[in-house]
């Protein structure tokens, strides 16, 4: 079953690798759920690939969920504005750094490998606090 001609397998290598910079993928979304990338506003549909610096924006009926390549999971609530201001991850060494900014709204986080790799390798910033994540599940809410 798993015996393919080598030529075909070799072809798979070149096609298989997705854009190197992918950091997360949208799993589900509903209502108004957008990704702001530079000056673009893109629809956050299932399978959408995120890049460092992307902003997650939802309207009053909007939601979205996503999983990062280090296994961190996010759920973004309505009326939210969340930026992934820094995301670096070495898949081989399973280390990195991760800074998320919650400008408004609500965000549930289950931390992944980056938070485990070094103390405060994962941080979350709100308008009045900077948090260091030490391996856990939590919700940050920033009312308007």
């Amino acid at each position, binding site marked *: 079953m798993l015996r393919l001609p080598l030529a075909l397998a070799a072809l798979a290598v070149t096609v298989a690798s997705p854009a190197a910079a992918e950091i997360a*993928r949208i*799993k589900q979304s509903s209502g108004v759920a957008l990704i702001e990338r530079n000056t673009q506003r893109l629809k956050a549909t299932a399978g959408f690939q995120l890049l460092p610096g992307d902003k997650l924006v939802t309207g009053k009926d909007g939601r979205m969920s996503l999983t990062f390549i280090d296994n961190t999971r996010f*759920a973004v609530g309505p009326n939210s504005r969340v930026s992934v201001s820094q995301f670096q991850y070495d898949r081989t060494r399973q280390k990195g750094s991760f800074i998320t900014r919650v400008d408004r709204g609500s965000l*549930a986080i289950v931390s992944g490998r980056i938070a485990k790799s070094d103390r405060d390798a994962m941080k979350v910033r709100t308008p009045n606090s900077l948090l260091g994540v030490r391996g856990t599940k939590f919700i940050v809410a920033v009312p308007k």
Partner: protein
Amino acid sequence: MIRAGVAAAAIFLLGGCATSSLVLLPDDEGHQGAVAVLEADGVPADTVIAQGNSRTKLGTRTPVAKPLGPNGLKKQEAALLTGLPPPAKSFLLYFEPGTTTLTPQSATILASLRAEIAARSGPEVEVIGHTDTVGGEQDNDRLSMKRAEEVLAWLASQGFDRSMMSAVGRGERQLMQPTMDNVDSPANRRVEVIVR
């Protein structure tokens, strides 16, 4: 009296609206992690919140965590947790010595791997090939990559789009079972597939 009451209510409202908050929960396996407050209103701080099922108002250097109490989570908070994606799931497939042929037992896992990917919305699949320490390092880098590619090609043949998948080979550099060089090890001849 009445005036004082109104003033107090106004302050409460202001405080309630402007202050961000943290709800800390045990993870899905029941472990309790912590969140440290490193900075409050621009001033460095060093308070660790480690009490599970607690709510904390942020913005002060020494915030106090309070138990969620009998009312538990607010409706919006519960909805947020329900919306979290499922955790990543990892599969291990083992190979016959020096080949890209799956062991008979591992071949039976392919169906559940396929079902796991099919059940997920917006899936991402990471395929990581490994070898044991028999043979040279460069040969093993190539063999581990070929093993990963074979699994990826099989998944593609099952209808999964290649854009959701990636394959890497790590040769004999990440042994599951540490051994000396040139040791035949069924546990090390493997491909790990992480489904997110």
